[in-house]
């Protein structure tokens, strides 16, 4: 929040576009470095888990993907609130750029969760509160993408999407709570992710992988927002100059 007072300057596409362009390689490189370190620690160095065997190693992508899927939704809701309150152009572009990555993270979380669940719980899917909420989160992402894709007018798409995101973010805790309540009532398959005392190397591996996912998401969202920006601002002077400069 420390660049708050600079928000307006950074929110202007003319400054944001080149800045994002300079930052992408750094974030991408950081993603590769953290990913390599995390995989090395997690896959090569970390010992086996005495309860789950080697299957536990899925945690190194499952947990980061789940975190990112939730975090990206919160970030989108944050941008949505800013967009509705201050009517900034950047916020709509940011939510647009983040949504596909968030949806992919939710998908990865479900996919790896299923592949983890099969050997550990003996089934691909359980109606556990966390899994169900993740599925609903994926639906919310898809709803956002479908709604904004269906609206031709960009400003209306941004605002309608922002409102949907805010409604969604209010609903997520309610949905999570209700699914949990429902699940305990049904005596769902007793799922307790073995609270095994995680070895220090495992924890570090997971944190490094989480950082990798984080950097990856930032890099890809910045790359996507640059394209969106160029498209939407094509009549602005800076965008014309940018396009003319590329006339190789």
């Amino acid at each position: 929040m420390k660049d708050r007072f600079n928000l307006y300057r950074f929110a202007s596409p003319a400054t944001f576009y080149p800045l994002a362009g300079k930052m992408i390689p750094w974030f991408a490189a950081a993603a590769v470095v953290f990913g390599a370190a995390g995989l090395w620690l997690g896959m090569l160095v970390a010992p086996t888990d005495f309860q789950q065997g080697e299957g536990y190693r899925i945690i190194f992508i499952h947990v980061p993907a789940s975190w990112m899927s939730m975090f990206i939704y919160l970030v989108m809701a944050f941008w949505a609130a800013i967009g509705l309150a201050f009517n900034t152009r950047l916020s709509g572009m940011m939510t647009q750029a983040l949504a596909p990555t968030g949806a992919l993270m939710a998908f990865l979380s479900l996919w790896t969760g299923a592949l983890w669940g099969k050997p550990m719980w003996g089934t691909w899917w359980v109606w556990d509160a966390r899994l169900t909420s993740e599925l609903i989160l994926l639906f919310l992402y898809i709803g956002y993408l479908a709604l904004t894709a269906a609206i031709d007018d960009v400003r209306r798409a941004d605002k309608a999407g922002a409102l949907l995101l805010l409604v969604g973010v209010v609903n997520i805790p309610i949905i999570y709570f209700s699914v949990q309540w429902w699940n305990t009532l049904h005596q769902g398959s007793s799922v307790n992710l073995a609270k095994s005392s995680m070895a220090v190397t495992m924890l570090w591996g997971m944190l490094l992988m989480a950082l990798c996912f984080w950097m990856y998401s930032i890099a890809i969202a910045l790359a996507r927002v640059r394209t969106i920006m160029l498209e939407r601002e094509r009549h602005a002077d800076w965008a014309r100059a940018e396009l003319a400069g590329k006339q190789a």
Partner: protein
Amino acid sequence: MFKIILAVVGRDLKLAMRRQADIVSALFFFIIVVSLFPLGVGPEPDLLRTLAPGVLWVAALLATMLSLPRLFADDYRDGTLEQLALAPHPLGLIVTGKVIAHWLCSGLPLALIAPVLGVQFDLSAEALIVLTGTILLGTPALSGIGAIGAALTLGLRGGGVLLSLLVLPLYIPVLIFGAGAVDATVSGLGGEGHLSLLAALTFASLGFAPWASAAALKIALE
């Protein structure tokens, strides 16, 4: 304040009465969907009893969805909505009236027919009462949340499908507590906890949803 709401409810009901076919077809949709389930899963009464709350509730969600696209579309097309948005009364109150009218034409008939369908599933008298109660109590929330989706998708191509995509995930808590209350009654646990949570959901969404819908309508009208 109540006068405005009542005026809107009265007007929308009058309009709905001119198109009774819509109400009746949503109702028959509900009846048919519910009646198809025993044909799909088999006639064992024990199985049907356990399925009944979920089946009836899911069918109620779908039947409510049917009439949602019409909620604002007609007023939007003939320009009434723009007039209403410019009126001195807050748009949220007008939407509240429209939501209530929508519930009277969709939720209320479903609740009235639900016990009859419950009998098909061999539910006990007590469970039937609770079922009717939950549908009465829960469907206003469906109309309220649905209004947000209807306002967001106003005038869009493929609006109906999109609307269900947006709204059905948000219906999940209502489904869980509504069906859960009947379930708990059938299994003898007592459904009071579910019912009070369902009531809380309904009041919260009736308080919150009209204003969110009003904001969405303003976006659509811009």
